[in-house]
């Protein structure tokens, strides 16, 4: 316990970033102080001198760590840290790589090895796994079974509160019917040719996910910031996109502890840059959409630690660090 009135010393301070935190209704320039892996304070004018490490976030947006509820991280899938953390995703949910039988090896080879918080929709009935790993198993892949939410790409078998993914794929699932039924709509793999007309009809997704796997990371380049940029290019605002990648997915997987910047909560954060330029994106069917803006993740904080920092914002120049210093 700190003595009353004593000033806390922070491990990390993100100064002057434009904070967008849909759950807490924040959309303004604020400082975020982090201590012992937790968000310690969110306010204006937190003194830089009170933190061991300070990041000037003036040029960037600061958001809750993003949540991707549809990726493939199993033996035939992709590496979550490499592809998720680097685009601001701090929670990545695997869509059905593990069955009740293979979950053990998925846990030891992927979940326990990753800095990303990897959660799972288990393929088929999870059985006793759900009770054994309530903090990891968030639902069932395929069709509904038991009380947990299901994630599937066919509406048949999904109930209110379940999640339909790949909603703008060439299979064109019945979105209006799904929404009427109370099923949540998740992007997953998608085609501009299907998404653009659907968005015009007002059929916006409830959650934006990547559906990333070995194929979609190549031509469609389906990382989270890439997919968010695509939805902004199709007309969604930055706020709309962030709602669907933070609080939206947290609700969908029934994890209210995730997807916000809340004092006392786990410090999972993304620092994003909105770049302008002449850009173009490919969809899952390899068609192109030309755009003028793009989101990039410049820094990711996971559990209070900087795990990705493309601009070196949190780092010391080597000439100031002593020629042979190995201290971080």
């Amino acid at each position: 316990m700190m003595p009353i009135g004593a000033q806390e010393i922070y491990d990390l301070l993100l100064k002057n970033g434009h904070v967008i935190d849909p759950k807490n209704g924040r959309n303004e320039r604020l400082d975020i102080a982090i201590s012992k892996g937790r968000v310690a304070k969110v306010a204006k004018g937190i003194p830089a001198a009170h933190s061991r490490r300070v990041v000037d976030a003036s040029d960037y947006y600061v958001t809750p760590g993003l949540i991707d509820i549809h990726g493939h991280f199993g033996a035939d899938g992709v590496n979550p840290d490499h592809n998720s953390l680097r685009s601001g995703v701090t929670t990545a949910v695997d869509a059905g790589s593990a069955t009740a039988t293979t979950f053990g090896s998925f846990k030891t080879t992927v979940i326990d090895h990753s800095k990303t918080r990897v959660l799972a929709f288990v393929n088929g009935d999870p059985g006793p796994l759900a009770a054994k790993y309530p903090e990891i198993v968030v639902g069932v892949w395929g069709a509904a079974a038991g009380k947990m939410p299901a994630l599937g790409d066919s509406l048949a078998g999904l109930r209110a509160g379940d999640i339909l993914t790949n909603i703008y794929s060439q299979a064109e699932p019945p979105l209006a019917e799904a929404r009427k039924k109370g099923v949540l709509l998740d992007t997953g793999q998608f085609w501009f040719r299907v998404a653009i007309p659907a968005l015009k009809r007002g059929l916006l997704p409830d959650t934006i996910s990547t559906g990333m796997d070995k194929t979609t990371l190549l031509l469609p380049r389906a990382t989270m910031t890439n997919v968010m940029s695509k939805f902004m290019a199709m007309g969604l605002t930055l706020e709309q996109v962030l709602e669907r990648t933070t609080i939206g997915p947290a609700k969908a997987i029934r994890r209210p502890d995730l997807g916000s910047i809340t004092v006392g909560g786990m410090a999972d954060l993304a620092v994003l840059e909105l770049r302008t330029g002449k850009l173009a994106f490919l969809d899952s069917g390899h068609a192109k959409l030309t755009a003028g803006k793009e989101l990039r993740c410049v820094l990711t904080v996971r559990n209070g630690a900087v795990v990705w920092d493309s601009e070196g914002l949190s780092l010391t120049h080597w000439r100031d660090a002593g020629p042979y210093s190995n201290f971080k």
Partner: protein
Amino acid sequence: MKAIHQRASEGLPTRAAGWRARPGAFAAAAAGMKSTTMLLLFAGLVWSQSRYDLLLKQGHVIDPANRIDGVMDIAVAGGKIARVAANIPAGEARKVIDAQGLYVTPGLIDLHAHVFGYSGSLNPDDSALPAGTTTIVDAGGAGWRTFEEMLEGVIRPSKTRVLSLINIVGHGMTGQAFEDNVADMDSEKTAAKIIERRAHIVGIKTAHFGGYGWAAIDRAVAAGNLAKVPVMVDDKIFTLTGRTSKEKVLSKLRPGDMHTHVFNDRQLEVVDRYSGKVQPYVLEARARGVLFDLGHGGGSFLWPVAAKAMAQGFYPDTISTDLHSSSIMMAESDMPNCISKMLNLGMPLQGAILRSTVNPAKAIGRYPEMGTLSEGQIADIAVFRLKTGVFAFKDAWQHKDLGTQKLESVLTVRAGDLVFDMEGRGFPEWDKAGKYEVIR
């Protein structure tokens, strides 16, 4: 010491493209089958007019093997480089890519990466291809006991060309206890596996050995002599091992053998840590043909070493990443990043491309079969943008340096297929794309 190699099998597995087979997708695929067949028939009629499958137009080609350093067109047909010339008509190709303002190079060869066995291994396709790397050499993940598993699990299913520097340890890179076990370092069995799998195994790796004496390096070199392949060494030089880097590079390694982690400070001491000068014995080793490989990794690219060595003109012979799940994060050690670091430390772009294509191909005895844009060779091509501005680059100690040039991967062609295209240069706009076809 040039090894006689059989030609690598270039047959790529046919892959279910675009869409993962899963419940629900089958019905959609079946419904689309008929129209796909029709389209292919129709397209076949149109495309039969084209001599080339792919044409990269007006890029600045850097192809050190052919002494090309200027604006050229490159045509691809049947998975091979068909023609490199100043002006190839756009009408002769099915797909034309405008590469103006971009650099076009042979697909990069990453001589030291991790895609099997090691706990931090990555998947080759999503780590290599988006970085312009078309050939990845796994450095010691598999040993003779585990190589077949790597062949079936990683080499054959990957679009990236994956080669192996097989570990002298039979169990491969599976942890310190295994890697220190001299009893599992069998030169004969290792050599036999190499001879059996010459298409895939290009040399031997000895790594992380923490025991006393020279057994690991000696046995790796003995296997190298039996199979006529080079050895790549990464090795601790703490005094308790009874080894010195001087003896290692002057009398243990043969001409053509490689020392990776060149800008490390504890496996090799390229720069004297007190005087800041490049060690004379390192220059002597280079003169006798020992190669020095970058092998950036999570602990082996240090600004104080790299900056001093490069300022004295001591450049690595080959640029490689030592890519694994940790080095890809804060240090961001993919090939364009490693090349950018070299550029900002004074290496010309042409020299950096030479050290990422021709030199690694030669080091593994695969030149000129790999690392060139010569007509008739497999079409592995990388396209880059050289950005100018102020950029941060980070070393393995998580200290930064600032540089003004950054190489960015824009497009990758592997065996004639467009596999990565960051800006959609090879594909039509969505509203002109036809509704239900995956565009090739």
